[in-house]
């Protein structure tokens, strides 16, 4: 399964995931508390520098990951042009881009396994409340395995639909797809039980 970790290997990849996440939380917190334009611009420039150091490919990839905020930036800018307060609008956008870009940087430079390790450690204290980190890790593995499987089955349902109808399948395949999910869940859980259950298999 494709993750958003960057294929461009950088020095950031080798930093411990927990440290990166901690630094990110701190930076994001400061970004939303300190509202001085100088600070926001400084953080944005520092972030841009962090993206620029590993090279052009990494920079382009970073820009692509910022696409989800483009819509909001456009809305805010139009809004503040209409209300005649462009300076505030620009500040809001800069802060938004800085916060999202910083978080994306952690996502791009941390492997899924390392992230999962942090999650397991964070969840370890909850074991006494009956929430086992092993069950959590197993569930994550199940989703990562089954999302592509379901996508494949959904694609086949859509193709079967197109073979019979001139129109494209839209909502029509959700019912059979959900039925497949329910039936697969039965089979997988039976197979798991036969192998001694979740806690022992993982």
């Amino acid at each position, binding site marked *: 399964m494709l993750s958003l970790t960057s294929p461009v290997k950088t020095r950031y990849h080798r930093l411990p995931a927990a440290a990166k996440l901690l630094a990110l939380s701190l930076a994001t917190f400061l970004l939303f508390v300190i509202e001085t334009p100088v600070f926001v611009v400084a953080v944005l420039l520092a972030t841009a520098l962090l993206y620029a150091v590993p090279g052009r490919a990494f920079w382009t990839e970073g820009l692509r990951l910022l696409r989800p905020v483009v819509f909001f930036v456009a*809305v805010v800018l139009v809004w503040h042009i209409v209300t005649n307060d462009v300076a*505030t609008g620009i500040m809001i956008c800069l802060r*938004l881009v800085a916060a999202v870009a910083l978080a*994306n940087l952690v996502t*791009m430079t941390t492997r899924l396994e390392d992230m999962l390790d942090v999650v397991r450690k964070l969840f370890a204290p909850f074991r006494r409340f009956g929430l086992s980190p092993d069950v959590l890790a197993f569930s994550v593995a199940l989703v990562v395995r*089954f999302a592509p499987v379901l996508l494949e089955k959904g694609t086949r349902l859509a193709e079967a639909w197109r073979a019979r109808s001139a129109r494209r399948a839209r909502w029509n395949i*959700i019912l059979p797809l959900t039925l497949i999910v329910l039936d697969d869940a039965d089979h997988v859980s039976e197979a798991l039980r036969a192998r001694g259950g979740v806690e022992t298999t993982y």
Partner: protein
Amino acid sequence: MERNVVLIALFAALIAVLGLIPKINLISGVPITAQSLGVMLCGTVLGARRGALAVLLFLLLVALGLPLLAGGRGGLGLFVSPSAGFLIGFPIAAFVAGLVVEKLKAIPLTASAILGAVLGGIVALYIPGIIGMAITLEKSLPEAAMLALPFLPGDLIKAGIAGMLTAALAKARPDAVLSRA
């Protein structure tokens, strides 16, 4: 135990796959995807607790950096973006939708599931969503609510579809709709 874990994981995967179904543009030009329909279904089919857990599992994977949100989005950045409130609202939406179906056993499943999908997938989802947009975009709550308004017609349609799907599932696999078990 095994069945619950697997159902939760597979419904989390279903939410991801529904986000990949080609989006439809409403007359207003607002794109709608089936992803929030998946969140509603988690609640109305699995029930409050399991449904919320499935959505939480899905969000965990998004946070860890898998591109599972509609449009191939993912990563920690989304949790500080203006959409963050809606992400926080997702598990609450599934919980409320499930709770409504679980509690309203007296009325037909289709009706209670549509009601649950509206109260969960719209009311309980839009409140944190609008608060999130108000904070990140520095707008007042009514102003932020206006930004969410274009998505309302699509979500109403989805709530209707979620209700009918839940009833159809209950007919096809009577013991699988756990919200009514």
